[in-house]
């Protein structure tokens, strides 16, 4: 009887998010590549090479709340300067892995909640914009983008 009751409950609840099934992974860096002093450089979230990418896995029927921690400046490797970076309201795109999923553009500066309808997992691509000053120190600059995901 106990086993029957448990099976009934499992059927009613649907697939449960076992602890090992939720996943957030940083896949690809947001890479602006060569930047010219004094010339702003933007990477579109749809850029297949230079956009940043995260992978999120949950379950169909579940919800995820996404909150980015975005840098406002990149730091010169070895010291000696900062490079301003900004993110526009359309700089993030989420798309489920199911064939029928379509991309959703959202504002990476604000918290977003998604209900997973057709895909249990999805990718988030992130664009951005750096604005080097005319006297920006040459060299490599680096910063960290963090994606915080809460699974419901």
């Amino acid at each position, binding site marked *: 009887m106990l086993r029957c009751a448990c099976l009934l409950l499992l059927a009613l609840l649907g697939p449960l998010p076992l602890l090992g099934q939720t996943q957030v992974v940083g896949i690809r860096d947001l890479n602006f590549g*060569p930047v*010219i*002093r004094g*010339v*702003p*450089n*933007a990477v*579109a*979230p*749809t850029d297949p090479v230079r956009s940043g990418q995260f992978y999120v896995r949950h379950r169909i029927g579940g919800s995820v709340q996404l909150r980015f921690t975005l840098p406002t400046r990149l730091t010169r490797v*070895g010291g000696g300067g900062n490079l301003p970076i900004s993110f*526009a309201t*359309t*700089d993030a*795109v*989420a*798309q*489920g892995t199911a064939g029928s*999923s*379509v*991309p*959703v*553009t*959202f504002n990476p500066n604000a918290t*977003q*909640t*998604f*209900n*997973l*309808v*057709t*895909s249990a997992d*999805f990718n988030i691509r992130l*664009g951005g914009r750096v604005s080097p000053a005319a006297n920006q*120190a*040459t*060299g*490599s600059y680096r910063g960290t983008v963090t994606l915080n995901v809460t699974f419901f």
Partner: protein
Amino acid sequence: MTLRRFFLPVVALLAGTQVLAAQGVVVAPHAVYLDHRTRSAAITLYNPGAEPVEVSISAFYAYPVTDSLGQFTLETPDSVTAGMPSAAAWIRAFPRIMTVPPLARQTVRLLAQPPAGLPDGEYWSLVLIAAKGGSLPVSAGDTAGISVGLTLEVRTIIPLTYRKGAVVTGLALSGLHATPAGDSLAIRVHAERQGSAAYIGTARGALRDAAGKVVGSFSEPVAIYYQAEPTFAIARQGLPAGRYQLTVEFTNERTDLMPEQLLKGPPVRDSLEVTLP
């Protein structure tokens, strides 16, 4: 919000960038380095103007020397012989000819296809970027008379360096001297490259009075491919007559180049006692 919703992102690249009423291109980096392992590099062209710019890329062999006045100029051999470290013949640009739209950028990949058995060493070329844009505005002429206007075109030349195997560089200084020239002190020094690679760095000089206080200085990027005798200047306006100590130092430091591109060598220094009238 669900992932069913469809929204095409539209990102205005470079929105807000100032459009210049000029024609030409921005070229970055301003010096290209390749090595035998990767054999490729890229330059970025950016059109800051309001008109499309036609760009063509070519390579030729030349290297900087100094003239009789100590000014840097290019030495272009009449012909490139086997003993010259020229990379010009085997550097290819992709694309070689292109049109860069207004406020757009174009990446040009430079690929090296060196001959088999290329000995270890450093090889040089110059990359010429010719930009031809829309005509600049000239005044409307009197259709019954004669009106004259000339438009401007630009070409940019940047150095390219190809390294194979271990290469080293250094510098030997000799013949430091200083001569009053107008309101400046003209300083010249003979610099001869050591090792197997060009000496790319910065020349700095300081003029100190008897109390050791710096009363004048200079700092200039230098490129010594073989040998050179460059002229530097320190303003001497307001300096009282007397004896001064001049020090000159060459280092491999450059703020405009990536540290990994610079060959390291010990700083070289020379000094001289100078008497100002």
